[in-house]
């Protein structure tokens, strides 16, 4: 299983010279399986560039965690949507209020959009994520509601022996300290238990969190505790606050490694996600390379010297 990060920013795109290394695009992750089939996790602005790379793909499957704009904004600029021969399947959270298609159509419709969903040239199917595990090709997918603002899913994806959990918007410590909760009372616990790679919300520093309790996101300390409690083999911290510059995120990465070590974990197994990161999920140790900088994703704590991202 391979994972590529196309957008790791939370809330709103945050481009700019101080954001180049971690990237300004919002949530989008491409997962490639043993049989070369793929799933796309969320359709934030990162999906635009991914769409250009998928120019010839006959079929595309997208799992949406929820419909906040930072997770769907790229849909309207996703090239496969404009190819008549492309079949796109989109899964997302159900709602008693309206179908997934109708809820997405509130964004892909006038006056917010020049096109309507029904005018998209591709053939697109919208599905509520099933309440129990389901299969997409050879891959098993499980969706569960998690603590955020509004109906929000996390995903657990299994291909053979390899398992990934994707919980980009998550506040498991809302209302109580994770230290005080038994496993069964922790949101997202089952989704993330013993995964090879956990991609998890880390929007705030611990100092920033008290002013944002209930906003649906995690502080660094809670993200680390959650990753440790569920026994994730590696964790990639994600959904960076739009105010956090490269410099700030480097400092958070260094702090994360230090605290992870203090928790008895190998600091090579924690990292802050950067746009462009490619991760071989079941490779042992820090076998992941940040192609742009020729260094490992996991265990990178020092500030890289240059930015080569275009």
């Amino acid at each position, binding site marked *: 299983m391979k994972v590529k990060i196309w957008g790791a920013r939370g809330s709103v795109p945050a481009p700019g010279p101080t954001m180049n290394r971690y990237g300004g695009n919002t949530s989008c992750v491409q997962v490639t399986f043993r049989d070369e089939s793929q799933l796309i996790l969320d359709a934030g602005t990162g999906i635009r560039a991914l769409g250009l790379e998928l120019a010839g793909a006959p079929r595309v499957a997208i799992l949406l965690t929820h419909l906040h704009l930072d997770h769907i904004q790229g849909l309207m600029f996703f090239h496969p949507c404009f190819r008549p021969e492309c079949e796109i399947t989109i899964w997302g959270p159900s709602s008693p209020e309206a179908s997934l298609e109708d809820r997405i159509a509130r964004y892909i419709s006038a006056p917010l959009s020049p096109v309507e969903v029904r005018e998209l040239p591709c053939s697109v199917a919208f599905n509520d994520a099933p*309440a129990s595990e389901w299969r997409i090709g050879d891959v098993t997918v499980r969706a569960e509601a*998690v603590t955020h603002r509004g109906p929000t899913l996390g995903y657990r994806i299994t291909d053979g022996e390899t398992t990934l959990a994707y919980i980009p918007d998550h506040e498991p410590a*809302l*209302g109580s300290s994770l230290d005080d909760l038994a496993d*069964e009372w922790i949101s997202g*616990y*089952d989704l993330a*238990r013993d995964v090879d790679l956990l991609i998890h919300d880390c929007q705030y520093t611990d100092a920033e969190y008290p002013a944002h309790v209930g906003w649906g996101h995690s502080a660094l300390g809670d993200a680390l505790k959650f990753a440790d409690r569920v026994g994730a083999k590696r964790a990639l911290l994600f959904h960076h606050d739009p105010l956090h510059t490269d410099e700030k995120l480097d400092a958070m990465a260094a702090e994360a490694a230090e605290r992870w070590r203090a928790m008895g974990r190998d600091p090579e197994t924690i990292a802050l996600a950067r746009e462009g990161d490619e991760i071989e999920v079941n490779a042992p140790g820090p076998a992941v390379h940040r192609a742009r900088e020729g260094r490992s994703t996991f265990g990178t704590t020092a500030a890289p010297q240059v930015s080569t991202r275009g």
Partner: protein
Amino acid sequence: MEGAQRPLELILARNFLTSVTTPAVLVDGEGTLLFYNEAAAALLGRSFEEAGQMRADEWIRAFAPVDEEGEPLELDGINLAGALKSDRPAHSEIRIRTASDGYRALEAAALPIVAAQGKASGAIIMFWTRTDNGET
């Protein structure tokens, strides 16, 4: 994979109960007592950490609810069970045994918690001490 974790709506309900000072308990769809808050602990005279989760028959025995005539109540006899069985709210006047002062007259309101599958996964029961005819 075996599920260890409670559904999100129960997790959030427990969270909510820890934040209010109205005595309240959280039960699952089978009537098992999953949690009660500090205000309920003050009423019952025993902290939840001490008591732990209890099956319906266990907490019925521990708190010994009785009806207006002093007759012991089974779960089905407590109007509140209806909140679980029919996904409807319920209101009840009961007396329970407390650690400190024998029996106490209470009003109880049960609200079923219904989530995605349209079936109650549990209920919140809140208690108010009755003031009209005093404690026994």
